[in-house]
């Protein structure tokens, strides 16, 4: 069969185009949602993720949630790593202009006011609700700016799922606004050494005597 030489090049180009567009279509098709059940991530899949803490005590322990968090030093951990300490925790975000700085201040006041003996048994945890802006380096800068004792304070960032789950467990409300800021409840939560919610304090910039009393009472006998 006679094939005109004028046709050969365009035909080859056409063929390449067809293959390229088929490739593009097929690969973008795959992006339209993985409908197969995703494999449950095992912490051992990644080199840098610590193995789960298996000895979590109590069905009401927040430590049952094994979401991963990164602290201000870039260390990956689960909440259960605080097991054994009394945890004073608040959810915040660094761009928060008024109430979050007050909450951090309240927590610092608690740190000063609890008895020296109990202070060693307590850790302070700040979890950001704004993971897109509050990277570990942002948290580290905030930690320095606020003069937080690195041995006692952890600032954590996790993915959206982890944040929503923790907020659900603690009863914290928040909503993201269009400008990227948040409306959120002002809450400081105390977890006992098993990770069970022991006390909730509402408000920012008010008296922290109730928190101090709660911490002292559960620290007895630790």
């Amino acid at each position, binding site marked *: 069969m006679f094939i005109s030489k*004028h046709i050969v*090049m*365009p035909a080859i*180009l*056409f063929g390449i*185009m*067809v293959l390229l*567009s088929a490739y*593009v*279509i097929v690969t*973008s*098709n795959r*992006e*339209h*949602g*993985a*409908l*197969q*059940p*995703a494999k*449950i991530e095992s912490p051992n899949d990644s080199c840098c993720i610590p193995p789960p803490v298996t000895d979590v005590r109590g*069905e*009401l*322990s*927040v430590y*049952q*949630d094994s979401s991963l968090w990164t602290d201000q030093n870039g260390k990956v951990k689960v909440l259960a790593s605080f097991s054994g300490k009394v945890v004073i925790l608040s959810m915040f975000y660094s761009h*928060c202009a*008024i*109430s*979050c700085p*007050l909450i951090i201040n309240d927590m610092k006041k608690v740190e000063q006011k609890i008895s020296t003996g109990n202070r060693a048994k307590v850790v302070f945890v700040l979890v950001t609700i704004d993971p897109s802006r509050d990277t570990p380096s942002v948290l580290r800068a905030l930690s320095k700016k606020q003069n937080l004792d690195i041995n006692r304070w952890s600032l954590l960032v996790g993915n959206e*799922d982890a944040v*929503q*789950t923790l*907020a*659900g*467990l603690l*009863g*914290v*409300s*928040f*909503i993201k*606004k*269009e*400008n990227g*800021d*948040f*409306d*959120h*409840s*002002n*809450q400081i939560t105390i977890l006992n050494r098993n990770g069970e919610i022991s006390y909730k304090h*509402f*408000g*920012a*910039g*008010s008296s922290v005597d109730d928190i101090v009393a709660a911490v002292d009472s559960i620290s007895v006998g630790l």
Partner: protein
Amino acid sequence: MRVQIKSFIKSVIIVQVLLTVSVEVFAYPKKIHQANGLIYIPSGFYHPLRKVEGRNVRMRSFYIKEGFVTNQEFLEFVKANPEWRRSRIKRIFADRSYLINWENDTTLNSGTGRQVDPSAPVAFVSWFAAKAYCHWKGVELPSFDELQYAIEILGKRTSKRCMNAASSLRQNNRPWEWVEDINSFGVALQQSDSQSEVSSPLCAGAAVEFNNISDYELLRRFSYLSSIKPYYCEPNLSFRWIIKILR
């Protein structure tokens, strides 16, 4: 001859681009939704109930499941994930009514007593359980706004599938359903006192205003979701999922 080849190549390229674009835009959403019981919700502007900045919000496109997750589908999930079975679930993730209507951990019915319909919407599941299901399946819960946006879009369509889906999403004798942002409802209910904003339970830059307070159904859904906690397992509370299109 050079000129001929050049113009031929140009036309080939144009045809190819048009072909690719049209296939991508028109054929694939339909193809996918037909195969998987999903409906394509295109991106567009939406007037949310909770107006925080006073403007329309641009919603991104997604696929929404036509109906609720069924008992049969949830059964597959608990079979594959023992820690979400009724006898093993941790109390912090679901109250004592979790899957209470099932015969046991991995069986819907025993043959006697009240029968659980495998194709009926799964009930007595907490938000944590619904989220775990979605994570397992590689999908997501819809947000409150995404649900309402889907209802608006589907309400404008006349195909039977879309009308059935819209009807399944609306509240007429249907189960309520979980949303991803269940933690956002407490904000609207706690009014910040402008005098002593900092000592109030709420840090809010401005009072949350509501649009569209004449939409009774929307307000009912808002009120219901405001009243439930993430660990509740209720007889008339189910869920469905969406797949967000990230382009």
